[in-house]
């Protein structure tokens, strides 16, 4: 059975990182009102599914920054109705600078069993460009503490930071792997919505790794992680077998999810609903008993199947040749030609077991393939 996942957005950070455009407020001024609103929304909407949640994901913003009581009360609310499954994966994103033993204990005691650590890099030359509040040593300490206390820990590593080189990236990765995490997510720095980095790039283009270099970064990460026993089970995610993120897998396999909190998105297989992106408005609407939903997109049957291919191809196992063929038959001639070209260029692989997947090269050029499906 496809049990649903719950996503909860925690829009507070101690400081705004230069690159980030996720919905978040600096400081905790509005924490109490948000706390009340989030719990209220969960209570009001828990009945939307009559199945227990088997994953819960606290994303942000910075879930490790707010009072653990907030997360605790949210979990309590989720336990109403059909509840949370006994073996549910309960993840919280955490920033290295927040973790001390008290915080770790608190998170663990409320039921969090997986941490996703925003490491980004372990280079003290690169961290200042990002304006993170931790240095490399702090991040190492936090990682050690996390892996000590939690059975499952993931780390976010960022590629494309100003000044980053293959060497510095290898060092960051080695540090992360040595800490004993079982899961790794790699992000490519996106600067479009980060005006200060856009300005920096204009002024100092030399600081930014180019596309070729980034491609090498990616290959390096893959090689090192693979050597450490990790499997790339998704385009930008590596895990020791059995440690994949069950919550994120729901997104890539079009399983149902419910999103709670400001800017949170949920999906029931056909309809994708997103809450308002304004924290103030979110709180106001929810406390007045109104829905916080701002966008509702209903995918047509065709869009839904195309999307399932697009997302399925991100996974290590790809999609079945049968479903791939069925969907490509509905594409325009131009798009089918592009897929043919992609296959000839060695981006796609048709396995003997009847599956279609991205090749090593195809992972790096995946947009060339995906754009046929939008």
């Amino acid at each position: 059975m496809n049990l649903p996942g719950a996503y909860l957005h925690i829009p507070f950070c101690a400081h705004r990182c230069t690159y980030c455009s996720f919905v978040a407020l600096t400081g905790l001024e509005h924490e109490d009102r948000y706390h009340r609103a989030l719990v209220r929304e969960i209570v009001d909407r828990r009945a939307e599914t009559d199945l227990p949640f088997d994953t819960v994901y606290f994303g942000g913003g910075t879930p490790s920054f707010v009072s653990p009581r907030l997360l605790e009360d949210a979990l309590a609310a989720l336990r109403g109705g059909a509840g949370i499954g006994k073996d549910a994966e309960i993840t919280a994103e955490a920033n290295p600078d927040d973790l001390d033993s008290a915080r770790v204990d608190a998170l663990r005691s409320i039921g969090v069993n997986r941490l996703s650590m925003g490491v980004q890099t372990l280079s003290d030359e690169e961290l200042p460009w990002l304006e993170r509040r931790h240095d490399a040593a702090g991040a190492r300490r936090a990682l050690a503490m996390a892996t000590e206390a939690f059975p499952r820990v993931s780390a976010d590593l960022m590629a494309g930071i100003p000044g980053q080189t293959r060497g510095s990236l290898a060092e960051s990765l080695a540090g992360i792997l040595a800490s004993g995490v079982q899961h790794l997510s790699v992000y490519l720095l996106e600067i479009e919505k980060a005006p200060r980095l856009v300005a920096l790039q204009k002024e100092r283009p030399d600081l930014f790794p180019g596309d070729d270099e980034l491609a090498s970064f990616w290959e390096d990460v893959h090689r090192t992680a693979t050597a450490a026993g990790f499997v790339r089970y998704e385009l930008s995610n590596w895990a020791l077998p059995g440690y994949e993120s069950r919550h994120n897998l729901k997104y890539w396999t079009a399983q149902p999810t419910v999103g709670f909190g400001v800017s949170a998105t949920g999906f029931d297989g056909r309809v994708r609903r997103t809450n308002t992106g304004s924290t103030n408005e979110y709180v106001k609407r929810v406390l007045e008993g109104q829905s916080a939903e701002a966008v509702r997109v209903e995918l047509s049957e065709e869009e839904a199947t195309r999307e399932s291919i697009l997302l399925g191809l991100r996974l290590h196992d790809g999609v079945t040749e049968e479903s791939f063929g069925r969907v490509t038959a509905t594409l325009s001639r131009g798009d089918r030609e592009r897929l043919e070209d992609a296959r000839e260029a060695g981006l796609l692989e048709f396995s003997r077991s009847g599956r279609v997947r991205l090749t090593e090269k195809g992972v790096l050029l995946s947009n060339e393939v995906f754009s046929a499906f939008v």
Partner: protein
Amino acid sequence: MTDPSRIRNFSIVAHIDHGKTTLSDRILEITGALTAREMTEQVLDDNPIEKERGITIKARAVTLNYKAENGEKYVFNLIDTPGHVDFTYEVSRSLAACEGAVLVVDATQGVEAQTLANAYLAIHNNLTIVPCINKVDLPSAVPEMAREQIEEVIGIPAAHAALTSGKVGTGVRDLLEQIVHEIPPPQGDPDAPLKALLFDSWFDAYRGVTCLVRVRDGVIKKGTKILFMGTGQTAEVQEVGVFNPKQLVVPQLGVGDVGYVIAGIKELLATKIGDTLTGAERPTEQALPGFQDVKPMVFASLFPTESDDYESLRDAMEKLKLNDASFTFEPESSTALGFGFRCGYLGLLHMEIVQERLEREFNLSLVTTAPSVPYRVTTTRGEILEISNPVKLPDPQYIEKIEEPYILATIITKDEFLGGILALAEERRGKQVSLEYAGTSRAVLKYELPLNEVVLDFYDKLKSISRGYASFDYQLLEYRPGDLVKLDILINGDPVDALAFIVYRGKSQDKGRALVDKMKEMIHSQMFEVIIQAAIGAKIIARSTVKALRKNVIAKCYGGDITRKKKLLEKQKEGKKRMKKVGRVDLPQEAFLAVLRVD
């Protein structure tokens, strides 16, 4: 119907940017055609492309009521014309509907090349010229210099020329009075069979073709059965009217009137600009002379980026042709680009505007290939071929000789820029014909030049050398033999017919090198490596490589991100749709025009 003696028909002509359309604004205002609230800057430039570029591309006719100082009421049919040399055809059509022309000269610039060219056009059409010296509000205005140049360079009296400012309105009433008193009223016989000149038209999906006419004899009204003498098309008039500048239905159009006729014509080829309209039941004997077919001198091909759009493109071109008789097109098929059209234009700006109008007004996505002039080839078998598409050039062993068109260029400039301009003209294989001075520092330079050296970027170069203080006009001379070769461009080893062009042998090496380098900058990395080569015959003379793309990936994607990332993918895809696929390679529009971007 107005008494013809109270009608004044005139075009406003000038060099580009000398203020024709702004002056028209003031005339519209003074005559009360538009209220202050309806007024905008350059009201008559109402095509969005005109607004964006700040230039007139289409002549516009408006009918205005003017109460003169003598208390009499007059009807003005004013036609605002474009100043750019590529649109001279618009000026000649407009002049054919008029008895007079207001020649505007910018008091800060003086007489420039199109001032001269347009003045001569008016003189050839036997029109009365009313000069006016404009932009006198500007501190740098030197009306005396302008007056002297009108008299010396053009050779018409200008002692009484009105001193106007289209911007602030000074002198415009004086000008209107001169129009009343100096431009002769139209002549014609109201009782004779209908005879009207069709001088512009456009297509509307609901009403069919709207014809803009100037009535010479007779009357035309709702119910009149008309005959287009050139095409033989007959129709019954549904509506006649004028633009004031809003469309206004009137009972009839008589001698001297300028207005529109709608006769429910839906066939695009039924009407032709320059044709004579007459009564089907009582036709006139002699058609009006009409217009000489303009000879396009710049040719380029247009292809839809999506091959399925070929038929829509044909339809769009036929409709646009109604409104712009100066461009030509014929079907063409390219091995690399599929089905498209070879189009003839009056110049590069014209080419750009036609493509832009087709894309915007008809919602198409197109690519244009490198422009070429027409060549005349004599084969070893003695045939003479007109080659306007390099693809069609026979193999060298079958060519006896190639001739290329030469022009007589008139360049008017300030003395101080002469050196740079002479060097440019020489570099472009030019031969000086004359150099004269008008007034103190005005140089009038004439050069014979191969058109091939001029169409692409001569004008831009001229402007930059002279910091804008040189103007340029040309007339065709004749074909002369040239040492010319075809330069082929190969993409991944295959020659792309649509990228070939013809070039002077002495420059072929440099051109080929510069071109492949330029194209390399313009072609983005893609799934496959792209090798660009330039070749003359079997000999590769230059090569560059666009390395294969290594990374195009969106890392990490969760929950709400999916929507955002799909949008990103859609954006990438939109970009690709605007490119033309040649084999496996996506070529952007710029790559086809790279030849315009190399020195």
